[in-house]
């Protein structure tokens, strides 16, 4: 199928891109990798009058790390993330997510900034960004601002960005030596959106205890859902199988997931518990085996 006609701009600078967004307002749609936007345009589900394409803007696809933070350019592709040593070693949950977004061909073009700003309710990154306490940098007419991931996602396909704002960078704190993370996704086929995805970040404490835990689910609400009750349970004592099970059960409570052709709501509730348990176990195992080289 064929997109409806549109006016096209591919400005070479962010400033010009912002100016174009100001000029065209709600009529304009920003394109990063195009791997979500173009299929929707082809199916004529979305038909922007104006497309502002960021592909010519330089330096938006770098991954930099210092002692405290990893900075990821918004136009960094999924493939770049999944194959980055820095990401794999420092933020394993993000690498987990990057390698299961779409398929290898989509991962060559699709970007983390584009995916975050698209804000599909069943996308992989949003849960990971919340779990890893990421901040998103956005530039707009008024300058740059930083948005905490948890505040960024408002609804399905809706973020707190103004129509004139562009995500430029995602920054994620470098985890400490005792921290570990994982993302685990359940989907019909490997290439499909998550039925349920669970991102978790844990801090190992004394005596097999977990001092801090973040557990965030995707696919079960309009935005990433934080399983705070499960987090509390995980922190309350040694991380044994029974505690994991309890955390899983807790994560299922108060969920109100959608039903669709791939799975009904009850299924999503059921497997949410299972996947919380499995994702936490996977992250924990990582911290025990130490192969992830956390914090190095």
């Amino acid at each position: 199928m064929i997109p409806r006609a549109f006016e096209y701009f591919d400005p070479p600078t962010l400033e010009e891109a912002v100016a174009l967004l100001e000029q065209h307002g709600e009529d304009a749609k920003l394109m990063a990798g195009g791997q979500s936007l173009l299929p929707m345009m082809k199916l004529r589900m979305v038909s922007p009058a104006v497309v502002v394409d960021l592909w010519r803007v330089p330096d938006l696809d770098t991954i930099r790390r210092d002692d405290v933070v990893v900075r990821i350019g918004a136009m960094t592709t999924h493939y770049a993330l999944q194959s980055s040593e820095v990401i794999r070693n420092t933020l394993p949950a993000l690498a987990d997510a990057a390698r299961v977004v779409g398929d290898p061909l989509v991962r060559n073009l699709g970007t983390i900034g584009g995916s975050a700003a698209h804000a599909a309710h069943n996308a992989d990154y949003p849960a990971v960004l919340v779990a890893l306490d990421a901040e998103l940098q956005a530039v707009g007419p008024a300058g740059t601002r930083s948005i905490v991931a948890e505040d960024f996602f408002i609804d399905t396909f809706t973020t707190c960005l103004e129509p004139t704002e562009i995500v430029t960078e995602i920054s994620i704190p470098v985890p400490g030596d005792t921290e570990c993370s994982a993302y685990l996704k359940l989907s019909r086929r490997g290439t499909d959106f998550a039925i349920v995805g669970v991102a978790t970040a844990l801090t190992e404490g004394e005596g097999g205890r977990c001092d801090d835990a973040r557990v965030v689910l995707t696919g079960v609400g309009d935005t990433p859902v934080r399983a705070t009750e499960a987090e509390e349970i995980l922190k309350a004592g040694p991380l044994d199988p029974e505690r994991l099970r309890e955390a899983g059960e807790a994560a299922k409570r108060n969920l109100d997931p959608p039903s669709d052709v791939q799975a009904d709501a009850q299924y999503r509730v059921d497997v949410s518990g299972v996947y919380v348990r499995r994702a936490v176990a996977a992250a924990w195992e990582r911290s025990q085996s130490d192969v992830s080289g956390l914090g190095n």
Partner: protein
Amino acid sequence: MARTVQATVNGRKYHEENVEPRLLLVHFLRDRLGLTGTHVGCDSTNCGACTVMFNGKAVKSCTVLAVRADGAAITTIEGVADEEQLHPLQEGFWEKHGLQCGYCTPGMIMSALQLLERHPDPDEETVRLELEGNLCRCTGYQNIVEAVLWAAGRLRGASA
């Protein structure tokens, strides 16, 4: 607001004027340049029949605007063989019966090209994972996997 696109496709330079912004790369290749080996099998970036190498990366050309090809280097299935000499992947698909109707084959080969660049000595699981973006309805993938493993062996032998 049509544009001009200058691109290098299969080593040849093309200069195409009046490219509508909504023109998809796959239709640019097929309808404008006559390179019909790249196919279309879906509307939703799932099937991979349209896979081409775009600036060194295998991408679905139905999900790239042709205007982005300005200045790009593109390889399509028509540019994979070296003159009359088939690429080992092409030989492998032939040798191992990795195709039946042939419709997905060009895209499959383009994906496999990238697979072997990234994983010169892949195991079966890697081959299957890296071909997840290409759908085949005829073969059940079994002989496609065989074909890629065969070609990998050939290529390693050639570089050894």
